[in-house]
C-alpha cells in the first residue's frame, strides 16, 4: 500500500524526517508514536504530498504521490483544522466532500446515519459554522468526512487529543471496525500509548525524524513503549528539538 523510500526533509539544517525504508501493506493498522518534534506530522504531510521531500519518495500503490492525483481517490486524512472549511456548517462541508466522491445528499445522509453515535448529537443541525465548534467537535467533523469517503487508506494525526472519553472509545471501535471488516489501512498517530497499542497492530516509534522501532503489537509492547518514554531512561540525554510543525 505505502512504500517510503529514502525519504528526507531538512529544515534550517535540522533533519526532521529521515526514513530510509518503510513498507506498509494493505490492511495493516499502523500506530505512529514519538515525542513532540519527532517528525510525525511532517511524515504525514509528506505522504499526503503537502510538503516537498528533499530526497526520496513516497509510493502509494506503487505510484509516487508527488504531483499525482490518483491516490486522492482512495485516501482520506485529517491532520488538523486546516483540513476543514471553517466557514461552512458541518452539513454543508460533509455534503461538499460527499459530492467530490459523486455521492448525492441522500447517500451522504445514509452514511452519516451510521455516525450518529460518534457525532453524539453535537454536529448535525446545530446551527453553527465549523469555526464555532470546539476543537473536539471539529475533529469529529474531520473524522466523519474521512469515513464518508470510504477510503482504502485512512490517516489521522492525533485524533484522540481533543475528544472526550466516550468519543475516544467510539473512535477506537470505528478504527478497529474499518480495519478488520472493511480492510482499510489505517495510520494513526497519538501520544496516548494505551490507545495506539489497543488499536494498532504495528507500531512505528519515531525519534528526531528517524523510525527507531518498528514492532508488531504484542502484550509486552505497551511496557516496552512506556520504558522508552519513561523519564530517567533513554530520555535523560534527549535534547529538546524545536517542533517545526506544531509550534507555528
Amino acid at each position, binding site marked *: 500500500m505505502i512504500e517510503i523510500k529514502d525519504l528526507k526533509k531538512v529544515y534550517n539544517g535540522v533533519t526532521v524526517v529521515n526514513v530510509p525504508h518503510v513498507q506498509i501493506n494493505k490492511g495493516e493498522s499502523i500506530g505512529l508514536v514519538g515525542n513532540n518534534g519527532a517528525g510525525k506530522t511532517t511524515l504525514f504531510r509528506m505522504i499526503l504530498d503537502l510538503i516537498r521531500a528533499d530526497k526520496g519518495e513516497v509510493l502509494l500503490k506503487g505510484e509516487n504521490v508527488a504531483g499525482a492525483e490518483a491516490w*486522492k*481517490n482512495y485516501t482520506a*486524512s485529517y491532520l488538523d483544522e486546516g483540513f*476543514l472549511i471553517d*466557514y*461552512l456548517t458541518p452539513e454543508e462541508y460533509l455534503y461538499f466532500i460527499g*459530492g*467530490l466522491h459523486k455521492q448525492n445528499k441522500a447517500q451522504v445522509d445514509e452514511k452519516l446515519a451510521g455516525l450518529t453515535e460518534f457525532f453524539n448529537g453535537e454536529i448535525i443541525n446545530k446551527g453553527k459554522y465549523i469555526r*464555532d465548534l470546539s476543537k473536539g467537535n471539529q475533529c469529529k467533523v474531520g473524522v466523519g468526512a474521512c469515513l464518508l469517503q470510504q477510503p482504502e487508506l485512512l490517516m489521522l494525526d492525533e485524533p484522540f487529543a481533543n475528544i472526550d472519553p466516550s468519543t475516544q472509545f467510539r473512535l477506537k471501535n470505528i478504527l478497529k471496525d474499518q480495519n478488520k471488516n472493511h480492510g482499510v489501512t489505517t495510520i494513526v498517530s497519538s501520544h496516548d500509548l494505551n490507545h495506539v497499542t489497543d488499536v494498532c497492530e504495528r507500531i512505528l516509534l519515531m525519534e528526531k525524524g528517524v523510525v527507531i522501532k518498528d514492532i508488531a503489537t504484542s502484550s509486552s509492547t505497551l511496557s516496552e513503549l512506556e520504558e522508552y518514554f519513561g523519564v530517567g531512561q533513554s530520555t535523560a540525554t534527549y535534547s529538546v528539538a524545536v517542533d517545526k510543525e506544531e509550534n507555528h
Partner: protein
Amino acid sequence: MISTFFDHELKAFWRSKNTGKSIAVKVFMGLIILYFLAIAAFIGFNLDKILAKASPHDDLVVAFCGILLVYYLVDVLMRLQLQELPTLKVQPYLQLPIKRNSVIGYLALTAMLSFFNLWPFILFGPFIFKVIAVTSGGLTATVFIISLIAFSGFNNYLALYIKRKANLNGWIMLIAAGGFSLLVAGDFVWHLYSLKAVSYLFFGNLIIKPYLVILPVVLAVAMYYFNFYYLKGNLYLEELSSKKESAKSSTEIPLLNRFGHVGDLIANEVKLILRNKRPRSALIMGLFFMFYGLIFYTNPKMGEGFKIFVGMFMTGIFIINYGQFMFSWQASHFDGILVSKVKFADFLKAKYLLFTIVSTVAFILTTPYVYFGWRTVMIHFIMYLWNLGINATIVLYFANRNYKRIDLSKGASFNWEGVGASQLLLSFPLILFPYVIYLPFKYFKYDNVGLAVLAIIGVAFIITRDFWIKKLEADFYTKRYKIAEGFRNK
C-alpha cells in the same frame, strides 16, 4: 505595570506578521501613511486660503469655528466604521495577579493611540498658530488646542463605548450610526438647523471667554470614566470579543448546481465571501466603486482615456480587489483542498466563473452611466471583456506567487495582513496594459481602432481560457509546496 504593557504592545507591533517582514511592504506602508499625512498637512497649512475661498463672505475665524464641530461629527462616524477595539489583547493578562484597574487603564490608554487622534492637530493646528494665535493671543490658541485634545478624547471614548455596546447588540451600532447621520442630514439635507452656527456658538465664545474650555475637558473626562467603569464591570472575554452568537443555517445556491464540481466550489467561495468579515468588506467596497464614474464623468476635462481606466475599475473591481489576495482567502483550509479530490483545473475554472458572474453584475450596475452617452457604456463593455480575459488571468497568475495567509475574521480597512510584493507587482500590469495598447492608437487619432483592439484581445483571451487554465495549473504545480507552507504559517 502599564510600562510593561506598553513594552509588550510595542513587541506585538514589531513582531506581528502584519508589520510585514518584507521591505517592499514596509516601504509601501510608509509611503501611503506619508502620503495621507502630507495631504492633511497641506490642507492644514493652507486652511486659511481654503476657507477664504469656500466662504468668501464670512470672517476667517468665524468660518474656522464653524467647521470644527462638523469635523468632529464626521469623525465619530468614521471612528465607528474604522477604529479597532483594543480588546482581545488583554486576554493573557486576565488570569494573572494584575489589578483590574491597571488592565483597564492600559486598555483605555492604548485606545488613544489611533491615527484619528492625530488628524485634527495636523488639519487645524497650523491654522490655530497662524491665525488664532495672531488675532486673539496665545491664551486663546492654547485653549483651542486643549479643546481639540478634549474633543478628540471624547470622540475616541464615545466611539469605543458604542462599539463595545454594539458587540453585545448589533442594533446599537445601527441606531448610533443612524442617529449621527440624521444629525448631519438635519443640517445639510433638510436645513433644519445649522451645525456651523452651533459650532460657532461654542468656539466663537471660546475666543472671548477662554474659561469655557472647561466644558469639553469635563465631557472628555466624563466619557473616559464612563468607558472605564463600563469596562470594569464587563471585563469578560465573551463581552470583549466581537463574536456574536446566532443560529447559522445551511444554504444552497440552486443555480450553481448546474455546473457540477465547479459549481460546488463557487458555492463554497460565495459562502466564504458572505460569511467572513474581510472578504465581505472587500465586496462592499466594490459596490462603492460603482460611483467611481460620477467623480470622473461629471468633470468635462476628463477625456475618453479616463473612461478606460474608470470602466476597468467599475466592472472589474471585484477581480482586482478580491482577486489580488487570491488563494490567501482559502489559506486556512488550503491543506484540505490539496488532499481532497478537487482537481486544480476545476478550482481555477471556479475562480474564472466567479469573476465572470460578479463582473457581469457589476457591468449591469454600471449601465445607468448611459446618461453620459452610449459610448460610455460601450467602453465599459469593452473593459468588462478585458477584465474577464486579461485581468482575471493576470490576477490568477499572481495568485500562484502569493504565499501569505489571511485571517478572514478581521476587517478590511487598514488591514495589511496578506499584503506582499505580489500585490504591488500585480498593480502594474493591471493599470498599464490597457494603456500600452490604447494610447499609441489614440496618439495617431485612431481611438476607435484602439478600443477595438482592446475588445479583440479581451475576447481572444476569453476564448482561449482553457489554454490559460492549463498553463496556470502547470505553473501552480511547481509552486504549491511553497504556497501551502506559507499558508500554514500563522
